[in-house]
Every structure is written in structure tokens, then in C-alpha cells.
């Protein structure tokens, strides 16, 4: 049987699942309303269920798998999870849901999900036919050809910039970059296209832009050079280069890698929208191994991002890393039990330790522009702001991201744990842990 003694999530964690602010506001209202019946939690895997009176004659059925987590509700809402599921989670978080035996409609859902997962695993395991293999090879060859042409063009463009001088680029706007990026998208090198697009705002980023732009152009030159000749590279580095160019690694291949089991702590999450595509970065840190990991997911407009990793929780799970010289991106291969609250993640690093880790990672992947750190110290406002560790060593925060006054208010000048992304321009705060609660940046 499950362990219904598992402490429920906090309201803050539930809020982290909400697709938008209005859903959560609606859920809060709904959670306090009458009209709930047959609520309970328990079963294997640990689940949460209930009936909620809606506008129709039959109440909505809400099922939540707390391990994955996954949601189902019979309401017609397109939001995911819907306000009913969120409201049920809120009721659970405030101790209003008792441990029960799951009703039939709950076990049916659980069973059907398990069956689907099994079928998918079988399909993935099935060997491909010879014809399929040949077709796949042809596609791969064609793609490689196209990417190679794109890389050659990029190298020429980079040389041209330096040949003619970059001094005028601050007058040129985004257009020169957009054109090159579009060409690289056509050449099926989306990673390079993204890297070129990230250059576009640099010339308008204020004093010192020339220095920053030359640095980025040079790294792109390094990448394009490596990508033009990957056979010359060690296997790990070649994998890093491929992923930076934008070549997808099949999920099966990642899952087949060596799993790393740990209590993975979700220390920060961040959503970004680039070119209509929303991406969610979930930063993990293993409590026992101290290893960082990034679970990245994407959603097209109208699609919902997965919400299975919740800030401020930890999860006993196996992760498999994408191949590379400084492995960071990973997939959750297997879970062992439901997530548990994690108000004080660790082990926290000193500034020196974090910089050592960043240096080692850069040695593997010189194109890194973000790396997660978990620092213990004092947040010091200023220009720029700093995080000062107990040894007195400090790291600046990226001034372009604005001043995190709310985090400063929570910290109150006392020592806190800061989850942040390291970047060349400084730290980007993700969350502050003051020992009892987590506050999202």
C-alpha cells in the first residue's frame, strides 16, 4: 500500500502548477466553496480524487496522480491542470482531504494510464525494419549535407563581420542577425540559429557592447569550426557540438544511458518564450551526488508545459543525461515514490566551489552560457548586486535582469540559500530559500 502519511504539498507548490494567475485565483475560490464530495487520497501510485459540483447536473470527476504528477478532470476546460484539479490540490494541502480507498473511477484511470505507458514502451522496443533503417539513413545524410552548407555560410559570415569591422553593427538593428538565423533554420541547424538570434540584442546592450559581441562572435566561430569537422573531436565533445548545432538526440537513446539515482531537488524553474515557442527549464540538484541537471521542455502556442517537477520539492528518481562533455540536460527515467517538500535544499556551495564547478564545465563545453549554482550567503543590493558567501567571496548578479527587491525583502540581509543560473554577465536568481519556505524570483 501507499504511505498516506506523506506530507501534502504547500499552497505555493500548487501555485507553481497553475498555468496562469487567473486559474489559481479561481481555484482558491473553488477550494473554499461547498460542492465537494467523495474526496480522498491514497492508492498506488499515490493519488488524489474528488467530485466537484459544476454548472451541469453531474459533478466533475477529478483524478490526480501525485507521483508523476498527472491530472484528469471531466470538465471541458482547456487549461491544464484545470481549476478543479488545482482546487482539489489546495484542499489536500490544507488538510481537508482524508486517506481513503480509491473509488472505481479512480482505479480505472490509473489502470488505463499504466496500460498506455506499457504499450508505448513496447512500441519503442520494437526493432525497425530494414526499409525503415534505409529511409532513416537517407534522411540523416540529407540533413547532414544541409547542415554542413549552413555551417559553411555561417563561417563566411563571421569572417566577413571581422573583415569589415563590427563598429557599425549598433546602427544596423536586428536585421543582419535575423537573416543569418533564418538561413540556419532552413539549413536545419536550429541551435546555431538560436545562437545567432541571441547576438541580435548585444549591439544595443549599452557601453561595452563591442567587447561582448566580439566574445560571442568568437565562440560562434569556434562552434562552427568544430561542427564543420566533428570527426576530429573526442566523442563527448562531438556530442556537445551536435547538440549546440541543434541536432536532436532521440529520447530512447538518452533513456538508454547510465541512470543516476538520487534525491533530486527542484531548486529553480524558469519559462522563456522565444519565437512563439515556450520553453521551461527545470533545474535539479542531487542531494547525495551534488550533481546539477536540467530538464528542458517545450510547448507550442496553446499547448501546456509539463508540470510534473514542482519547485521546492524533491524526488527520489533516476535521471539519464544527454551525451556531452559537460552533461547537464537530462530526462527523468524512473521515479521512486511521490515528490516530497524540500524547504532547505543542499548541499549549498561556496562561491569558490561554484566557480570551480563552472570552470570545469566550461572546460568541457566552452559554449556554456548558463549553469545552475546553489549558493549560501547574503544578498547585497548595489550596482551590481552581489551574493556574498560566508568566506566573504562574492558573485555579481546580472544587472540586465533588474533588481530583485522581493528576494532582498525575504532575505532581510540574513544568510539564505540562493538558487541561480551562472552566466557570463552575472547570476540570474531563480529562487530564495530562507530555511522555511521557497520564494520564486
Amino acid at each position, binding site marked *: 500500500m501507499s504511505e498516506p502519511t506523506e506530507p501534502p504539498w504547500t499552497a505555493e507548490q500548487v501555485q507553481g502548477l497553475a498555468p496562469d494567475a487567473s486559474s489559481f485565483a479561481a481555484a482558491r475560490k473553488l477550494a473554499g466553496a461547498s460542492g465537494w464530495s467523495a474526496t480522498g487520497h491514497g492508492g498506488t501510485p499515490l493519488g488524489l480524487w474528488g467530485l466537484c459540483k459544476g454548472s451541469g447536473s453531474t459533478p466533475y470527476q477529478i483524478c490526480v496522480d501525485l507521483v508523476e504528477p498527472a491530472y484528469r478532470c471531466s470538465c471541458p476546460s482547456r487549461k491544464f491542470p484545470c481549476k478543479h484539479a488545482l482546487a482539489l490540490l489546495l484542499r489536500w494541502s490544507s488538510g481537508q482531504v482524508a486517506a481513503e480507498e480509491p473509488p472505481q473511477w479512480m482505479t480505472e484511470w490509473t489502470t488505463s494510464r499504466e496500460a498506455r505507458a506499457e504499450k508505448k514502451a513496447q512500441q519503442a522496443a520494437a526493432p525497425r525494419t530494414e526499409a525503415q533503417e534505409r529511409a532513416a539513413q537517407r534522411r540523416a545524410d540529407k540533413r547532414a549535407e544541409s547542415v554542413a552548407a549552413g555551417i559553411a555560410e555561417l563561417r563566411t559570415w*563571421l569572417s566577413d563581420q*571581422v573583415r569589415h569591422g563590427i563598429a557599425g553593427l549598433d546602427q544596423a538593428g536586428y536585421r543582419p542577425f535575423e537573416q543569418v538565423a533564418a538561413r540556419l533554420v532552413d539549413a536545419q541547424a536550429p541551435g546555431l540559429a538560436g545562437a545567432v538570434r541571441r547576438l541580435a540584442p548585444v549591439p544595443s546592450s549599452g557601453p561595452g557592447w563591442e567587447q561582448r559581441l566580439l*566574445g560571442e562572435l568568437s565562440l560562434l566561430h*569556434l562552434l562552427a569550426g568544430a561542427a564543420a569537422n566533428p570527426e576530429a573531436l573526442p566523442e563527448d565533445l562531438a556530442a556537445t557540438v551536435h547538440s549546440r548545432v541543434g541536432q536532436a538526440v532521440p529520447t530512447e537513446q538518452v533513456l538508454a544511458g547510465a541512470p543516476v539515482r538520487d534525491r533530486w531537488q527542484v531548486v529553480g524553474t524558469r519559462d522563456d518564450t522565444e519565437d512563439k515557442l515556450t520553453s521551461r527549464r527545470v533545474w535539479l540538484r542531487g542531494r547525495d551526488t551534488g550533481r546539477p541537471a536540467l530538464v528542458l521542455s517545450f510547448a507550442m502556442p496553446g499547448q501546456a508545459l509539463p508540470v510534473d517537477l514542482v519547485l521546492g520539492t524533491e524526488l527520489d528518481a533516476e535521471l539519464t543525461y544527454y551525451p556531452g562533455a559537460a552533461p547537464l540536460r537530462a530526462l527523468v527515467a524512473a521515479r521512486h515514490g511521490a515528490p516530497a517538500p524540500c524547504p532547505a535544499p543542499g548541499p549549498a556551495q561556496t562561491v569558490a566551489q561554484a566557480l570551480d564547478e563552472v570552470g570545469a564545465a566550461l572546460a568541457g563545453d566552452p559554449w556554456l552560457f548558463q549553469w545552475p549554482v546553489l549558493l549560501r550567503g547574503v544578498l547585497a543590493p548595489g550596482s551590481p548586486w552581489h551574493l556574498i558567501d560566508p568566506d566573504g567571496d562574492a558573485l555579481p548578479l546580472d544587472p540586465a535582469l533588474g533588481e530583485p527587491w522581493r528576494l532582498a525583502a525575504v532575505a532581510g540581509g540574513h544568510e539564505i540559500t540562493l538558487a541561480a543560473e551562472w552566466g557570463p554577465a552575472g547570476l540570474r536568481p531563480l529562487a530564495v530559500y530562507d530555511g522555511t519556505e521557497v520564494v520564486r524570483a
Partner: protein
Amino acid sequence: MSTSIWSDLMSSALVGTDRRRPVLSGLDGPPAGTLSPIGTELDPDGLLSAAAAVTVTRRAGQVPARTQRPDPATAETAPYASAAAQQRLAALLSGGDAELDRTTTRDLAGEWLRIAAGRGLLAEPGLLVALLDLGSSDSSVRPVVRAVGGTRLGWLALQGPGRWAWAVQPEDAAQPADWDTGRAADRVRYLGELRARDAAAGRDLLLEAWPQEKAADLAALIAACGAGLGPDDEPWLEKALDDRRAQIREAAARLLAVLPGSAWRQRMAERALACVHVAARKLVATAPTECDESMRRDGISVKPPQSVGERTHWFRQIIEYAPLDCWTAFDETPAGLLSRKFDDTWGHVLRAGLNRAAITQRDGAWAAVLIHEGLGRRDMNELRELAAVMPEQDLAELIAAQLRREVDIATRLLDVLPTPWAAPVPEAVLECLADTQRRRSGWWQLLRHAEWGFDPAYAPQARALHDSLPIPDQQLLVRFITMLQIRHDIHQELS
């Protein structure tokens, strides 16, 4: 180590290698092994390779900075509000409620702050930035924001941008410097505070400055002496009446009017009584025929506003300023006097003057009697002014009774009833809302007032009423019920 290489590379990259070929002048350290030998001219690719080596080396070799630690905030002594209350405030401050408009959520946040401040509860640190921004745009909430922000608020404001400076220190008492160098408003405030502490010192300060002050400033400073007013002030105020500037005389007269036992009150009472006498139980009034020197000296204005006759103007002022207790010369109680017949010629001016007197002298007993007559005349401005000086309970009962007769007039009087409304007003409002057959003009207005006027403890009764109505009528009450429920929850969460 890499600074000189970098600047060589940078200057070529800026103008272009076509114009300036980069030559590595010197290098050492980790990048050395990856670069072309010293003295070689670099092509564009060579420049980019060298720049990449320097860039990666710099990033990987980042060293920790050193900087000043901030002083930590001191611990709070007051308790924090409950978790539910914190979530509530967070939602109100973000305006994240689709059902209510921005202004309403802001008002509700104001209510949260007032209650929490009253109960000595704190808002959690994560909300302080939102509260500082609220206070920066709306100075009326600053006192309560300061109260619920605790020591952390002042600490944060001290570190933060200048627009938060108002929260750094609790509002100081006015400083002596304000008197010497401050703006007129600061000087008035300083004098008022000094008078409240030490009336004699304030008086001396004012008399010393008197000759240099301009008329408008002096009038405002005299008015500030209302604080700590006592018999010792009569001599200098009497002297001020001899000033040739009307503003000064009027300011002095206002204070003498509220100084018990002043000679001014006595003079005004004598003037009023001289104009009125009783003949066969009827009050017969005669307006003065001239505004003599002594009237002018006592602050009576000579020139009437347009379309008002001189005598009416003088007479009305005399009645307005004459202490209301002078009328005991004719009758023991206000009701007694007002039950008399008033003569046709000047009687209406006498009545209007008495209304003004009740309002100006804030006499609740007179107002309570006069308002009943006012209801007949339906002069809303005057009714509201009278209502505002009535004792709260008397007004509540008056409005409750009026709600059963004329909803719109009662509604307009609700403006001046302090909130939460005293019984029996809420009961009368619910009764009025329940009577769907008799819906009158002013009903909507009534609902809007009731959202804020009701004590939230009435939420269950209001909901019961809502549930008992037919569906179309329920719709009309949704907003009222919602607001009352939210306010009810706010009160509960903060208890």
C-alpha cells in the same frame, strides 16, 4: 595576462581586418598554446580563434569579487498574520481576481491593511515590495503600510530606491526648523503640534512672528491655535479683532466662537436675542438694519454674495455664530423652540440660520431636531451636513426609518454614517432588498454603499437573503454578496 591581446584583437575587429591587420604583440598563460606564434599577422579566422581562446579563458578563470555586506534587518517583535491572510493580501495586491475591478481589489487591500494594523499583525516580507509600491503611488495608505511592514519595511526602504524614502522612518514630529525655514503648511503643522504640547509657548511664538507674517499665512497660523485653545488666548484674539485685515478678524472670530465663556460669544448672543422676540407664542424676528463697527470687528462680513440682500446676509451670520444655547432664553429645548410658529417676514432666514448654526457649531442635539424638518424640504446638501453632526446612533435610527419610506434619500444620507453601519441600518437594508415588489430608485446606489457599509459579520444573513430570492433577483445581489464574503473572509483570516 590577456588584456593586451584582447585590446589588439578588439581594435582590429572594430575597424575590420582589411584596414588593420591584427598582430599578436605578446602572450602568455593558458591561451598561448592554442594561438598563432607572436608576430604573425592574423586573418579574420585567426582573429576569431584568438578571441575565442581569450573569452573562454576569462570565463573559466572568473575570480570572486569582494564587496560590502548589508546590515541585516532586526528581528520583528510583532506577529505575522496567518498564512491564509498573507495569500489573500498577495492576491489583492496583484489584482488577480477576475471578478473584481482593480480599484475594488485595491480598496479591499486597504481594508486588509487597516484591520491588520489595528490588530498589530505583520505582512510577510515577500509582500513588502508590492506594499512599498502601493504606498509610493497612494500616500493615504502609508501609515497602515508602515504599521504592517514591521522593521523589515524600514530596512528595505533604506536599501531601496528613493521613491521608497517615505517608509524609512516613522513620520517624525515636526521640527523647529520647519518653523524657521519650512513651507507654509509645515509651519502650520509645527505650530499646531506645539500648541497641543504647550499652548503658551505656541502663543508666544506666533505673537513674536506676527508683524512679519502675510495676511493669508497669519490667518492659517491663527487657525492652527485651535489646538490647546483656552481662556488665556482670549486677550490676543480680542486684539486680533482690531486688525484692519478681514481675514485676520475672521480667523480670530472662529476661535472665539468656540471658546467657552468668551466675550465674543456673549456679544453674538446679545445680537441674536436683540433680533428675536416672542409675541403670542410666535417667534418674531427682525433683521438688523445696519452692520455697525462692532459687528464688523467681530468678523461679520459686510458685503453679501450675489442675489442675497444685505440685511438677510447680516442676520443669517448673527444666527449662525450666536451660541445655540442662547435660545434657552425662550425655550428649554431645541424641540420647544422649533415647535413655535415663526413669523412670515424673517422667520425663514431665522430657520436657515439655525440650520447653519447646528452645522457650524457641530451641535448634534440641534441637528437631530432640525433634520426632521429638513427631510420635508429635501435639500440634500444641508441634510447631509446636518446628518454629519448627529450622534451616530440617532442617525442610524433615522436612516433605518427613512429606508422604509424613501430609499433614495436614505441612501444619500448613508454617505455620512460611519462604517460599519450601526444597527438597525443593516437590518433595514436587508428588509429593503428583500422587498422585491417595492424596488425604488436609489436601490442600486444602496447596494453599492452596502458593499462597504455592512459589517462583514452580516455575510451569512446576506447570503440567506440571496438564496431566498427568485433567480433574476439573485443576480442583482451577486456583487454585494461576493464583496461581503471577501470582507468577511479577510476579517476571519486576520483574527
